[in-house]
């Protein structure tokens, strides 16, 4: 019996950020939820996210930024995806996205405008991310069931 192929998602920590702990736990949890995680680890440039998504035919890119430079690092990723012909891929971002304690609604608006489909506050439950991913894939007809 042929095993059903699992949906692939790209995971990584963007820019000059080397926070590795959450990345390892995300990989574990998303894999346990039935996805194939292509984990690029830490210190990932934008082009590596795009290239990995093309090479593996991934359906979503999950970007993390913990160190405060998220605003500079995350800008333009949607544009790169469009240029590379994967403009409609799901883009999620989460972490401590800006320097300083800031109103999350403002942060969320800023990143939605940048073209991210989902923006997560610090301390988000990973179950919610998995639920959102399932729902978004289903809406796009990319769900496994």
């Amino acid at each position, binding site marked *: 019996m042929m095993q059903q192929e699992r949906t692939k998602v790209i995971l990584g920590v963007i820019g*000059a950020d080397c926070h590795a702990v959450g990345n390892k*736990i995300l990989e574990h949890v998303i894999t346990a939820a039935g996805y194939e995680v292509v984990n690029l680890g830490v210190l990932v440039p934008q082009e590596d996210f795009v290239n990995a998504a093309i090479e593996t035919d991934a359906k979503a890119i999950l970007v993390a930024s913990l160190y405060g*430079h998220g605003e*500079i690092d995350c800008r333009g990723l949607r544009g790169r995806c469009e240029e590379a012909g994967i403009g409609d891929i799901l883009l999620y971002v989460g972490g*401590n996205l800006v320097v300083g304690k800031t109103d999350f609604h403002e942060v969320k608006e800023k990143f939605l405008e940048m073209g991210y489909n989902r923006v997560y506050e610090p301390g988000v439950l990973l179950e919610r991310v998995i639920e959102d991913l399932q729902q978004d894939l289903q809406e796009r007809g990319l769900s496994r069931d």
Partner: protein
Amino acid sequence: MELKNKKWTHDQFYAIRGEVLNQWPTGAAVDFAEAVKYHENIPAKKHFAKQLVKAKKNGRTLTQPRAGVALINEHINLLNFLRTEGEADLLPTTIDSYTRQNQYAEAENGIEESKRAGRSLLNGFPAVNHGVAGVRKVIESVNGPLQVRHGTPDARLLGEITLAGGYTAYEGGGISYNIPYAKSVSLEKTIYDWQYCDRLVGIYAEHGIEINREPFGPLTGTLVPPSVSHAVAIIEGILAAEQGVKNITLGYGQCGNLFQDIAAIKALEQLAEEYLNNHGYPDCVLTTVFHQWMGGFPQDEAKAFGVISWGAAAAALAKATKVIVKTPHEALGIPTKEANAQGLKTTRQLINMLADQPFPLSIEVQSEIDIIKAETRCILDKVYELGNGDFAQGTVAAFAAGVLDVPFAPSRYTLNKILPARDNHGAVRLFDIGNLPFTQDIIDFHQAKMNERAKAEGRNASFQMVIDDIYAISKGRLVGRPH
């Protein structure tokens, strides 16, 4: 280049110095002879190394925050606020993450964007871009001892500029600023590049200028067992001492169980003295730093103050020479200066109240000291053996073999085989020993401790237990028990 734990000759050092100073245009302004004169005029109260020695002598624990922003004037205001409002004894300059990766063009862009936005878009102070003159503006406008704190695998140019600028302390090391801070930089390269930094400090010492060096103790800051971080700290202490460094601070990140934390500082002091003496460096002044909890924090600020207070208490009772302070904004990223000052004042209050209360050397503390020492010796002696008597070569071989291994590290140069978890009393033990060269007694000890907890919780020790422990403090507990 062949990596060896051997003091660089002046010829060796100066052969590559020009290349280092050429990495960014601001390197041209570094003038060593002039920098020595500049250091000679730094008063003792602003001298980091001297303040540490004084605190050690008086049995005091000094407070130090982390802090850094993109622009010079804002950075000065921030540090002065932490000194006056936060009552900080020692001050930092935390370097931004682009500079840490030697991305000076990106740092320049961050400076420009910060000017336009009217707020810092960088998570630290880009000292290389500001250059010697910019750094001196900070040194001269801030009334306190200043240290460079960062996370830079190749910190040679940053070292040249900040030390010539007048900093009297420099954090980092070839292991502790590689394994937790890089993905694919070899240990041969980072140890070699940090020998340069240590040799630079050693050459300042030859000219009578004392500069403190501090390897980064907590490593990944995530359930790192004391013996694992102690082994790295002592190796980095030895590597620094070989290059002529005379004033060394070794560090440890709080685990959360008071007996283990006090024992860890005692064991670190005793072992470091012993190893430095036995390996030919009896003239180093050693001090200790205790890092308040480095893992995830509660978002609720009142609860965060609880975590900060517990770290302050442990640091004071362990008699660490200084404590690195967290803030109530920890769960949300980089704090405001007000939140930073609050963490400092909370810590100050605890330290003052505990200053006159000696903590008795109980059986519990002594047995923790014994186990930490026994484990650390197993690792250090194996590293030395693998290097055929050379700690630099031994370190490279030991990481490849998993004899040195750091949990949850981003670097591909650590095996990542060990898995820590808390025991039933919250002390950090090893649920998976990996390839650590422990004796059977020690392996049995860890297994018994894990079994005791697993039984109490009615589940098997597994990766889920490790995850539960990683999030436990941010969810209001020490041990990650099942619901």
